[in-house]
């Protein structure tokens, strides 16, 4: 029953957002491929919907596969209503070393802030906050951009394949 519960819920809210649902690697957790620019809307549904309530972002990992950047959000629900789900999106940068834009999920899952900062430094993914973000009931004012990890003078994004100092 819950196999397509998530998909129907997302499609009802954001038309055509879900591209496909596939097994993640060889494990039995499901990964939902979503259209890159609608990540924030989908995330809001996954978080706020009482049946889903996937409110715990375990990990945000970015992988560069043959010129496309795949960002995957490993989600769990603390209430245990849903098994683990992985929300994935892929973005193609126009050149192997140029930055990429993605909507941020800071207000939805605050624990994603340092992971987003890591992705921005290492992969050059600019997470920009959309205007209607400020009304979110953020309980803790976590610093939106804690300090960088890399020396200031370094240009380019180290974890890209084509990165050469």
């Amino acid at each position: 029953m819950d196999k397509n519960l998530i998909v129907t819920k997302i499609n009802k809210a954001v038309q055509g957002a879900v591209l496909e649902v596939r097994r993640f690697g060889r494990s039995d957790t499901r990964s939902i491929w979503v259209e890159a620019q609608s990540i924030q809307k989908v995330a809001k549904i996954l978080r706020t919907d009482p049946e889903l309530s996937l409110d715990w972002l375990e990990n945000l990992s970015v992988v560069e596969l043959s010129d496309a950047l795949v960002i995957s959000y490993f989600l769990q629900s603390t209430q245990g209503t849903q098994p683990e789900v992985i929300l994935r999106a892929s973005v193609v940068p126009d050149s192997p070393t140029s930055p990429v834009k993605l909507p941020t999920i800071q207000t939805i899952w605050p624990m994603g802030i340092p992971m987003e900062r890591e992705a921005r430094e290492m992969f050059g993914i600019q997470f920009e906050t959309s205007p209607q973000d400020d009304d979110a009931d953020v309980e803790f004012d976590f610093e939106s951009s804690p300090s960088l990890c890399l020396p200031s003078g370094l240009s380019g994004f180290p974890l890209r394949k084509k990165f050469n100092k």
Partner: protein
Amino acid sequence: MNLTQPESLKTDLTTWIIGPYHGSLPAPMRLSLSLDGEMISDCHVETGFLHRGLEKSCELHSWKAAVAYSDHLDPECAIFGELVLCLAVEQLSELEVPERAQSIRVILSELARISGHLSFMVRMAKAVGSETIIHYLLRDRERILDLFELLTGARFSLNFLRFGGVSADVTDGFIERVLEVCELIRIRMKEYNDLFTFNFGFLKRTAQVVPISKRLVLASGMTGPNARASGIELDVRKKFPYSGYSKLDFSVPVGRGDSGILGDVHDRFLIRLREITESMEILKQLLDVVPSGEYLNRKFKRDFVVPAGEAYARVESSRGLLGCHVVSDGGPTPSRVQFRTPTVANLMAIPQVVRGIRIEDLPVVLASLDLGIAEADR
């Protein structure tokens, strides 16, 4: 103009930047505190001093070198980095780990957990200022490091696991020595209790100091003993059992707030003390009957190639949930190795936790969060 009263008492906030290397910091990071007298009103955490480009170097070297690199993720208990990488690769290449290797891995991770918690207690003792217990703790941790050297040849960065098992079998005297060390630590626990938990001075410095609420733990993504001290039942060994943990019966200690407030420094300390006893229980159960058989899956030969695909594995390290996302394109080198480390969440929560406490409590709070900066900066 009244001579005795100054015109205007200048009482704005003073800023004090505690540099990367300072007595009160357990690890190299920079805190710029704005102080209102003795109270800290705001804190900005700056890290990145231990960034070594671990994940990039994993991509540049072979799969076996990636295991050697994952040792240096958390130098104190290196086995967890290796274990999470090996579990991910085994899930990716569907390599079945023999029974004996699984129990050797669990023995090593429980020993690493005890040694991790002992060094946590050393940092707590240093922050609180009681010198004698530091030497007792380090002497007992030395026994465990001797065990690591006996089995794997190295004390900290073991490089002992391989995809599909462990790289060498258990030497003859190892099992007895581990039981001996467990017995020794059980005797020493009485000393730790006398000098720590029942000591009024230690209680005064840690009881009801800086409680972390359950909501902050959930919001910042804290895991491991810090989260369990605030009452959140999350232990990867129970929720997502791996490498034979489902067969072991052990209980996960959760904070009971027995010093007044739930989730304060004393709770975070007691949790680790109880986890040491739990780990010893696990070790005893495992050491009674170490399953015989292969210690390494024979498929892992010299020219083992990791098939294309990706996998995610998670492990309960001594600091929290340690995850590893491995992507391979079938080539000789990994295409991406990404670690989800527990200290990142602790670092993010520091400004919330530290707001409004005295600077004398700062070392105690930072030590109680058990920050492993090496795994946060990678």
